[in-house]
């Protein structure tokens, strides 16, 4: 299945977090790898949007859009750090 990267979901991440997130860093809860969200492996129609760790391919984020609601699953992320601007 074709993948893109986190750059492609900058708009979606902005919807979820209310700020620019592609330069934020996330830590994989499984392997501990830290990367900027732009570097995540992204599946756009999985269904829903799925981001995986580039190091171990664990699922980090799942965002599904149902009617006007975003359902956000972040279980795979141990930590996210981003600026407060």
């Amino acid at each position, binding site marked *: 299945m*074709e*993948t*893109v*990267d*986190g*750059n*492609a*979901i*900058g*708009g979606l991440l*902005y*919807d979820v977090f*209310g*700020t*620019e*997130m*592609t*330069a934020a860093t996330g830590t994989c809860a499984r392997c501990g790898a830290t990367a*900027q*969200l*732009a*570097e995540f492996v992204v599946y*756009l*129609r999985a269904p829903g949007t799925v981001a995986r760790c580039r190091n171990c391919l664990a699922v980090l984020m799942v965002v599904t859009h149902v009617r006007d609601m975003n359902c956000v699953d972040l279980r795979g992320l141990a930590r996210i750090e981003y600026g407060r601007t």
Partner: protein
Amino acid sequence: MAATALRGRLSGSTAVAPRRTLTWRLASVTAVTEETASVRTIALELPDWPGHRAGQHLDVRLTADDGYRAERSYSIAAAPGEAPAITVERLDDGEVSPYLTEELRTGDQFEVRGPIGGYFVWDSGANESVPLLLVAGGSGIVPLRSILRHRARSASTVPVRLLYSARALDEVIYRAELAELGAGVEVCYTLTRRQPPGWSGYAKRVDDALLAEVAWPAVNEPLAFVCGPTPFVETAAAGLVRLGYPAAQVKTERFGGAGENDSGRPGEAGGR
């Protein structure tokens, strides 16, 4: 009456910051430029556009008569300070790109939001001593063109090398513009499928040997931006790391497989 009072109370509260969202705005097409047989640059007029950084994206939303909506993310082709423009490659089985490249006319309107992205961006003046290596596969040139225009417009003297891989010369986007970049910018092409007679550029896919020839040596501590189809970016970025580039100095943007169905593929051209 009660509702009015309640609204007044809520809007008067300062305890909770308003949730920030990207606003969809109606963009008007001011020009459509044919770049290659399948690629168009669409110049946009966007009232209240807040400005953008080189390398950022915008999201495009098209709504069909029956309410069906399709969204795609595109790299902004224009430099900061210029009116936004996107460059779109038509994918034959695409959902959005055939409309944008074939149907769209000057004066047409569609919804746009942005700018988006803070990772794959370059600001001139941030560090004039760091040379730039730009590596493009196909329409991956789009955000790099924004960087190049930004460099020129801001009179930056940052040394730049651009390695641009395309299938054939007539598929090279912005060819005339890239020929006139002037001092401080070296452009190397590799044409992977067809080369014109007498072609003196490279004629193979990007690999470690080609990168070793073209890329700044790692000791110069360059900053690299690599954009293209996912397999292209994987190869080029891994090759640069093998050449000694720190991974953090290799910014990457992947827009999927080349020439495949664009549904669910935001980066129809240049990450968008």
